[in-house]
């Protein structure tokens, strides 16, 4: 088997909490990402799912070194980038691009689409001359389904879907190998979402891209990803092959998530047995003892309150951090 | 607070010292003042000592409550400030209160009648207030006073003030107060009004205002209970901040209207390089700034549970 392109090991990101009126004092940490490990292989789509505050976005941002990790390793193509300085990071930055949730916020409103596309080409020295950059920009626009005459327009003249296409074109412009997709369609209408998702699928095929896909939409995750990691309060609770996990979820939280996601089919909806969780996600500042999920878990045992469960291997492509595995003897 | 005060005063002191010349320069070109006499004065004022020695001496005095000595007035700085602080407060508090009341009321009207004639009219007034230089307005008012004789031209008291009884004296000051207060108010309320308008318009667009309507609250309750209190919030920080300008914000107005306040004293001291008066005013400004922000924070905590309970 080939080497993974991304290997994250025991990644941690803590944010200090300060308090005080005149003198600020550190009173604790928000453990946004706590001991997260996974591997991603080439041409794979790896999904990070979970509810808001679970740490999926922080994980991605730390991997991109947009924020510095507190501890752990981030290996990209076999090299640990967790402590590289700006300069040494640059080639990795080029290889790793990101498409954000909100296309409006990520495009400079004062620059034309042409300028937005040409700038990174010249900065990363993908091309040598302005003419080449211009030609390449037009090529990119075509690739994402826009027209050459769009070059001279400004972002506000485009619809949401078109803006996201521009963001994709910009990400693709520097020939990346890994693209982080941070809820890339959640601001889009349903009728446009499919266009964008199909575009991602097409480029992955044609350009051998590896995707890190961050989403709370499990239907979308199922459709697009190969592997999925379910996060809860900064930790991965279940990880593995998408189909296996969606067909046979083991962690009660994964189960709850799946059962809570609506299905556009009234008959199925009416027959479904829902696991309705009580309460909401606890604060990441004061996480429960033992398994973080135990206060909401319908299957909790005494053990769950005391000790955080290890990762158990369910199958070759499926791991879960829950004592249920032992009980069921999988 | 203490380190801020220390750094700022040291900075001001160094800047004052870095400026060419000193307080005595104004006498150096006077043929009737001899070199020996100037030297005697230098020694007397401590100007012959190294800068840091002068600063530390002043600082030591400050700790014991001694603000230093004015070269120009040859009196303790605390006396000079003491006899003017009330005058400045009368003027600035009066116009402060009026600016805030007028600014908030007009801002609310302007926001509620958005894009109406009154909104546009008040906007024009506000921008006039912001744009017109204070000294120009002050001079305009002076001419108005002189031509119509309705208001006294300058000063805080009539020359016969000392012979008036309490009520007459109060009326006398009140009468003198109007023009300078108008100058300050006109420049001050406009910003507040625009700020209040903007803030209220923002709040009126908030979901909770719409939700209050949707649950059937009368418009009066929607505006005054749900919108207004939220709209005032950002102004409270400003309120605290502008409190700090109460003791020093009106140099030009005070000078033009001959109002016997601190602004004039400090301005003159700056020009004359009367360093300890400047230093004292710096100390006052810093303390006022810190106190103002503190008041702002306390008020904000009082009205906003999010701040209070965190």
């Amino acid at each position, binding site marked *: 088997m080939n080497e993974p392109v991304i290997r994250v090991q025991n990644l941690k990101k803590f944010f200090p909490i300060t308090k005080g009126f005149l003198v600020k004092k550190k009173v604790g940490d928000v453990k946004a990402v706590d001991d997260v490990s996974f591997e991603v292989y080439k041409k794979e789509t790896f999904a990070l799912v979970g509810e808001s505050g679970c740490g999926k976005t922080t994980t991605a941002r730390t991997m991109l070194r947009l924020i510095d990790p507190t501890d752990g390793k981030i290996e990209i193509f076999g090299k640990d980038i967790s402590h590289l300085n700006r300069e040494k990071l640059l080639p990795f930055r080029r290889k790793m691009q990101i498409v954000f949730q909100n296309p409006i916020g990520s495009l400079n409103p004062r620059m034309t689409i042409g300028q937005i596309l040409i700038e990174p080409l010249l900065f990363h020295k993908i091309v040598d001359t302005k003419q080449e950059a211009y030609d390449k920009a037009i090529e990119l626009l075509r690739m994402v389904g826009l027209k050459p005459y769009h070059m001279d327009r400004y972002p506000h003249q485009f619809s949401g879907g078109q803006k996201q296409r521009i963001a994709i074109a910009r990400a693709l412009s520097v020939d990346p190998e890994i693209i982080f997709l941070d809820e890339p369609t959640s601001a889009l209408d*349903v009728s446009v979402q*499919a266009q964008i998702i199909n575009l991602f699928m097409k480029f992955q095929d044609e350009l051998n891209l590896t995707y890190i896909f961050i989403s709370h939409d499990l239907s979308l995750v199922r459709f697009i990803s190969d592997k999925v990691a379910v996060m809860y309060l900064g930790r991965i609770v279940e990880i593995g092959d998408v189909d296996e996990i969606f067909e046979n979820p083991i962690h009660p939280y994964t189960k*709850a998530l799946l059962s809570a*996601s*609506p*299905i556009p089919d*009234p008959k199925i909806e009416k027959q479904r047995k829902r696991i309705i969780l009580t309460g909401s*996600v606890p604060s990441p500042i004061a996480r429960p003892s033992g398994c973080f999920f135990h206060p909401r878990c319908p299957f909790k045992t005494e053990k769950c309150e005391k000790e955080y469960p290890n990762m158990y291997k369910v199958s070759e492509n499926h791991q879960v951090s829950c004592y249920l595995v032992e009980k069921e003897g999988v | 607070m203490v380190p801020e005060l220390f750094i700022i005063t040291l900075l001001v002191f160094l800047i004052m010292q870095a400026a060419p010349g000193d307080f005595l320069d104004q006498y150096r070109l006077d043929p009737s003042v001899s070199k020996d006499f100037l030297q005697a004065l230098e020694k007397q004022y401590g100007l012959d000592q190294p800068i840091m020695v002068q600063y530390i001496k002043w600082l030591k005095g400050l700790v014991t409550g001694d603000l230093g000595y004015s070269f120009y007035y040859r009196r303790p700085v605390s006396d000079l400030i003491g006899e003017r602080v009330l005058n400045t407060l009368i003027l600035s508090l009066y116009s402060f209160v009026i600016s805030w009341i007028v600014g908030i009321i007009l801002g609310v009207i302007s926001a509620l009648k958005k894009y109406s004639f009154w909104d546009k009219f008040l906007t024009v007034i506000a921008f006039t207030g912001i744009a017109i230089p204070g000294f120009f307005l002050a001079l305009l008012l002076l001419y108005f006073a002189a031509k119509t004789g309705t208001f006294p031209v300058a000063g805080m008291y009539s020359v016969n003030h000392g012979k008036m009884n309490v009520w007459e004296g109060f009326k006398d000051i009140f009468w003198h107060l109007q023009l300078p207060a108008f100058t300050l108010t006109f420049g001050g309320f406009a910003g507040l009004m625009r700020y209040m308008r903007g803030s209220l318009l923002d709040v009126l667009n908030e979901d909770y205002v719409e939700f209050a309507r949707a*649950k059937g609250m009368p418009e009066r309750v929607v505006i005054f209970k749900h919108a207004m209190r939220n709209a005032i919030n950002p102004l409270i920080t400003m309120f605290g901040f502008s409190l700090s300008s109460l003791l020093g914000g009106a140099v030009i107005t005070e000078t033009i209207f001959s109002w016997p306040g601190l602004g004039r004293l400090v301005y003159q001291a700056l020009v004359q390089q009367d360093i300890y008066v400047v230093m004292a005013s710096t100390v006052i400004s810093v303390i006022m700034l810190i106190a103002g922000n503190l008041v702002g924070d306390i008020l904000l905590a009082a009205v906003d549970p999010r701040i209070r309970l965190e």
Partner: protein
Amino acid sequence: MEPILSVKNLSTWFYMEEGVVKAVNDVNLELHENEVVGIVGETGSGKSVTVRSIMRLIHKPGKIVSGKVIYRGRGKEEDILSLPEDEMTSIRGKEISMVFQDPLTSLNPLYTIGDQLTETIIQHQDVDRKTAWEIGIEMLKKVQIPEAEKRMMSYPFEFSGGMRQRAVIAIALSCNPKVLIADEPTTALDVTIQAQILDLMKELQKEFKTGMLFITHDLGVIASMADKIIVMYGSRQMEVASAEDIFYRPLHPYTHMLLRAIPRLDKKQDKLEAIPGQPPRMIEVPNVCPFAPRCPRRLDKCTKELPELVEIEPEHFVRCFNPVLETKNSEAIPNE
């Protein structure tokens, strides 16, 4: 039985500097007691403006240009749109309530939950503060907020998103309204919380026999909630039918394509069928089918005139010259 609420030929336009935005055109709908009508549509389809028009919460430069909203909950037929403004306050919150999309911003941050709850109760019911407070506590218990007595004293920021939406629902239902309008009430919430809230709303709706207008862009959510569904596109109703008909026998090409464009949790799909093109701009739209530019079944006629909303089958209305009749036998969702 007469519907409790009938909307007739409602149009609401916004007079902007760039031109007139015809946000809602000629909308008709009926809502019965104990019935859930869903309105589905994308951003700018006019679904939200429709319900705000019913509440008369349209502000300048918007204007309700035509139509009637007949309310029958007070033993007579009343056109809400022609009531005086102060009369309107006795309809809002008491007869017709509304829940907004974002629970984080629907509550005033400066007042306690109890205050915001009791002020509504006092406004509409002839009770004193103490009674109102007790009714408030009861309502919080109804929406399953634990320690209701204590939580009355809390401020919104002390609540999580789900709890806030519960509080909003408590306020909306506190005066036992006959109609509840829910404008994307769970869009801002996480999926597990969404499930809780939807469950709760459904339960309460059944309990109070409220007529509910439920607005969403999420076909999954609407599938579990609505008895009847209105599909809106480009400020007009495109298809109106029972939930089953919409999902299993969609007749309008837009509905038909939309159902194929969304991924499904319960199936492994190879491909999503994307709808080409962009949603329409809403300024100065001509009177033709708004979906025509993106429609693969477009006829010449479609770009020239506006199809009527016709009842093609009983209780199944479609606005289309070329409906998808050949897929009658529920090909829309391939059954496995």
